[in-house]
């Protein structure tokens, strides 16, 4: 049996597990519920804003459009966050759990190499995340376009960056899962994400206050976990601030992450995956 067939068998097994354990269905049901509430809220807020403010004071500022785009970016931030959370939650126990429950023994005594099992599982989760995040993002973008007529520049590259941040988390969780227990691995994944999130804020305030140390702290945290930096790269591409929305928070970018960050994140996700393949191949079961 070729390596590709083995990997694909494991990928299918991983997707089937997510279906059978109803993880996929619960996630998609929650996504639909979220999109419904989002759509209803979006519509009523737009009606209210248009009624209250009309087209705004002048040609340079359009409050209805500003708020429509703000809400769209906020929705996509939820996709970004949930994508990362799903990546950690789904995969934290996929290796360690199988080792702890001994189900891995029957798999690894087949004529295959361990890296094929790890890669097959990784691919399965990458596909699940792609579908999940794709459904969520498509729902938000379509709701916004249908209700407000507004659209974001560079939408697809931005969504690709969001997906990349989920894949970085997947790599972290896989690498942790080759050696840590499921709980320790989940805790580590969320700790790293929190680090990136707070680091991102420190960097933004640092930039506004022109404090280089704070900016450096943010950059270092982004190198450890690039998820937040990738989000900011995506937001920069969408240019929501061109609508004069000067707001703090995850949707405002004072300190721009370097364009190199995208390349770094791709390399980082790959290195994590390769380290996970290597680490799992060497451990004793």
């Amino acid at each position, binding site marked *: *049996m070729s390596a590709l067939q083995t990997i694909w068998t494991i990928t299918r097994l991983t997707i089937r*597990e997510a279906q059978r354990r109803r993880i996929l269905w619960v996630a998609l049901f929650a996504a639909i519920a979220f999109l419904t509430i989002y759509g209803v809220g979006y519509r009523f807020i737009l009606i209210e804003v248009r009624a209250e403010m009309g087209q705004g004071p002048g040609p340079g500022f359009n409050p209805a459009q500003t708020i429509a785009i703000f809400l769209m970016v906020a929705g996509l931030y939820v996709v970004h966050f949930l994508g990362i959370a799903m990546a950690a939650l789904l995969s934290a126990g996929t290796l360690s759990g199988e080792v702890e429950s*001994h189900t891995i*023994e029957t798999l690894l005594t*087949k004529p295959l*190499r361990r890296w094929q099992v790890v890669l097959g599982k990784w691919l399965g989760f990458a596909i699940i995340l792609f579908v999940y995040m794709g459904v969520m993002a498509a729902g938000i973008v379509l709701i916004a376009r249908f209700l407000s007529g507004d659209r974001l520049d560079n939408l697809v590259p931005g969504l690709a960056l969001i997906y990349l941040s989920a894949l970085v988390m997947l790599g972290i969780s896989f690498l942790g899962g080759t050696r840590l227990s499921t709980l320790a691995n989940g805790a580590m994944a969320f700790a790293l994400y929190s680090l990136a999130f707070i680091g991102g804020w420190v960097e933004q305030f640092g930039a506004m206050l022109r404090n280089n140390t704070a900016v450096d702290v943010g950059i270092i945290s982004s190198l450890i976990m690039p998820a937040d930096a990738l989000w900011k790269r995506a937001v920069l591409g969408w240019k929501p601030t061109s609508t004069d929305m000067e707001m703090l928070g995850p949707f405002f970018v004072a300190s721009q992450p370097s364009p190199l960050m995208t390349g770094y994140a791709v390399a980082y996700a790959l290195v994590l995956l390769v380290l996970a393949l290597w680490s799992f191949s060497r451990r*004793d079961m």
Partner: protein
Amino acid sequence: MTVPAIETQHLRKEFGSKVAVADLTLRVEPGEIFGFLGPNGAGKTTSMKMLLGLTNPTAGEGQLLGQPLGEPGVRRRVGFLPEHFRFHEWLTAAEFLDVHGRLYGMSSAERAESIPDLLALVGLADRAQTRLAAFSKGMLQRIGLAQALLNSPDLVFLDEPTSGLDPLGRRLVRNIIAGLRAEGTAVFLNSHLLSEIELTCDRVAFIREGRVLRVAPLAELEQESLRVRLRVGQPSPALLAELARFGGEPEQDVRSGVITLHLSDERTVPELVRWLVAAGQEVYELSPQRLSLEERFIQIVGEDIVEQ
């Protein structure tokens, strides 16, 4: 010269400062049913994991069917039923076998042919569409056994294959092992149920503290160890002292006067009879009894462990 099913040279496994397996050197012939015996913590499971490539040895080497340990290709011809028999319980029995058949590299035609046969063999033909989550312990062990036989292996590792089974299930496993023997499949059997080993194995190895104490054909173990019950007219302390040269320390039951002797070889029996008659003893009873494997296990592995 035939290629042995298993051959190991001084396999050793340390976990930190703890030595799990000190020196595993053994050879299992093709088609042989080989019992692997030892007290808890003797290193049996670690040994099996090293043979199967689940754990890397610290030192030493070994071959499965002529290929070095850890070589994935050879596992195409190897089956394994793990001790814990925990499987992906969200799969149905048929799906479970199908996935593992794919991993063995079996074609869809081969899988379609062998899966129903194996389900029938382990008595789960009517449970093909039941999810493993709904299976009892015994049923899981049966489906695990079917999984171990999917690829018609030349060598099967069974780690405690009857631990979850009722007497009927145990008989089923015995019959399956007999079938494997008939097909020339080697079986490496790790079990605590010595009566099972006694009924199925050709040869056994005794392990303690990660070392092979002894490897012997079961028939040899039976022959070499005999307990003789002896009743004579006038048992005297002098007689007891003289009997000692036939083997061990003779014991005499105070009330019945029955003497018990342990002989190390069956061929000593006629010699003993001749001596008794020549010595003028009136022999009322002389009955040789074979020791059970359990009694031999305790003799070889050591009582101190059993008493712990």
